[in-house]
């Protein structure tokens, strides 16, 4: 029983991390039809930047802020200088541009931070463990769940309860009509892309203490986030949440029960969803 509970909480923690990534990825897809293949690279770079800041200032809070802001700005710059231009109109062009960024960021990370795995130290107040009935659990991971829930609530409130959220939803449905009623859709898209990037950078920092930072993690994380979006459906926040928790749990149980086939369990989950609904659980069309 305690094994089951521990794995379940681990899965939820990882699912929350995946949610932060998939929410951004899914919005980028839904509003702009951009497959951002550099999303995992944003995660990794954000984590590395957070690592350096934490090392020099000993402040986890500053690390989060630094990782989140720098990647948010990086995302905005990439969007403005490349993805928004006329040569990036087609999905395929965007795929190639973001894949080019993936290669560049991966090499830059290896250059600056070296090839060996790193971990961001946990903040002091979140060290130690907590007893939940019969199981022992690190405080830090529970804090990740709390932070994830806060961001989830914020995103939900933003998208469902504010005027700007309504604009984003309108953009997902039909961006030309949205533009037609006088909304600066270009600005909306830029902000969405930055927000998505920022969340990925933030996820990199808060994932740093327990997932770690290593070369190759960018593609691993990208892959998981993409599977979450495939399962949840493009442009759906609810889909991103359900998909992320589902993949988080499948990954956690798969890794402990069938370590050799852990990737296969995720694939099987994806195939089953696609067989039932080719556009994902909450996808449109």
């Amino acid at each position, binding site marked *: 029983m305690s094994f089951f509970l521990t794995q379940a909480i681990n899965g939820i923690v990882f699912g929350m991390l995946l949610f932060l990534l998939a929410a951004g990825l899914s919005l980028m*897809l839904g509003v702009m*039809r951009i*497959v951002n293949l550099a999303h995992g690279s944003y995660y990794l770079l954000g984590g590395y930047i957070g690592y350096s800041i934490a090392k020099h200032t000993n402040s986890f809070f500053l690390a989060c802020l630094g990782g989140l802001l720098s990647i948010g700005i990086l995302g905005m710059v990439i969007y403005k200088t*490349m993805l928004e*231009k006329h*040569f*990036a109109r*087609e*999905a*395929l*062009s965007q*795929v*190639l*541009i973001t*894949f*080019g*960024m*993936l*290669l*560049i960021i*991966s*090499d*830059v990370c290896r*250059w600056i931070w070296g090839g060996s795995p790193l971990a961001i130290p946990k903040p002091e107040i979140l060290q130690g463990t907590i007893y939940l009935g019969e199981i022992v659990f690190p405080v830090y991971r529970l804090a990740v769940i709390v932070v994830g829930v806060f961001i989830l609530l914020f995103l939900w409130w933003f998208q469902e309860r504010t005027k700007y959220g309504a604009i984003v939803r309108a953009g997902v449905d039909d961006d030309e009509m949205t533009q037609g009623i006088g909304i600066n859709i270009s600005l909306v898209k830029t902000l969405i892309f930055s927000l998505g990037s920022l969340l990925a950078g933030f996820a990199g920092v808060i994932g740093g203490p327990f997932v770690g930072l290593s070369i190759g993690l960018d*593609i691993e994380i990208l*892959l998981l986030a*993409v*599977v979450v*979006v*495939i399962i949840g459906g*493009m442009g759906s926040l609810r889909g991103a949440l359900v998909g992320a928790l589902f993949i988080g749990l499948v990954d956690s149980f798969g890794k402990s029960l069938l*370590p*050799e*086939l*852990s*990737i*296969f369990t*995720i*694939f099987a989950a*994806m*195939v089953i969803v*696609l*067989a039932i609904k*080719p*556009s*994902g659980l909450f*996808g449109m069309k």
Partner: protein
Amino acid sequence: MKTLYPPLRVTILIACLGLLPLFLPPFYTGLFSLMFIFAIFAMSLDILQGYTGLPSLGHAAFMGTAAYMVAVLNVKVFKTCHFGVEFVTGILSAGAVAAILGLIVLRSRGTYLLMILMASSMMLWGIAFKWRSLAGGDDGLPGIARPDFSWLGLNLENTTHYYYFVLFFFIISAILMGLVVRSSFGHTLLGIRESETRMQSLGYNIWLQKYIAFIVSAMFAGFSGVLLVYYNRFVSPSELHLVTSAEGLIMVILGGAGTLWGPAIGAGIIILIKNFVSGYTEHWMIILGALYILTVMFAPQGVYRLAKQLVRK
């Protein structure tokens, strides 16, 4: 060039390629073999991307499946090379993976399909990476024997002889793929690329046509995988990796999607650049990444069409 009779042009081209090893040092002969292998890979991807309008970020799955199949038969089962069996099994296994995958994924479309194919191929990569007992895990499988063609007077351990072996299969597969895209089936695919709804109302079964194109393309990709594994005498999970799939995509775009020669030229350019740049700097991935972005910015139609336009002017 225009005044030359087309078959004559092709004959001259083949003659030039055939004479190439006489002028090149062995290293470059080997490099050209690799270029032809990836040319087959890029052309096979173009059947999907350029002719059917189904861009794929998972094409390495088929190349890698065939490569692994050959490697496992070669190293674990036969302990030597049975070319005929390995060749056929390799290509059929790539086709089989496509046949199973196609059943599940081809109902999805566009960007969504692109992501699904990427995820699927990376799952295969994950399996190869973890499965140490059969596939050697992340170390891959070394020690693959090349086919024995001594009855033809060929010694395939020799770089030049292997070059001719690859060239022969490159010509065969180029002819076969040319026949596919020029057949009525190929024209149906072009129709699907231009307008699915129109083709549907003409009575075509769109799904089935796509499915067949998917399998045919996968089998040609498997073909390149078979040649690659003998060339390297080694197989590793990177043959299945997203990076390899994306390389196929950039080869097609750089050369020009929707033509068969274009992707072959694109493959040559990418292999050359990768080889030279990685010789000069450790940070060749930055250069390669920049190349992806520059291609989209300056040659989205491909260098083949760019050159054609320049010649016409």
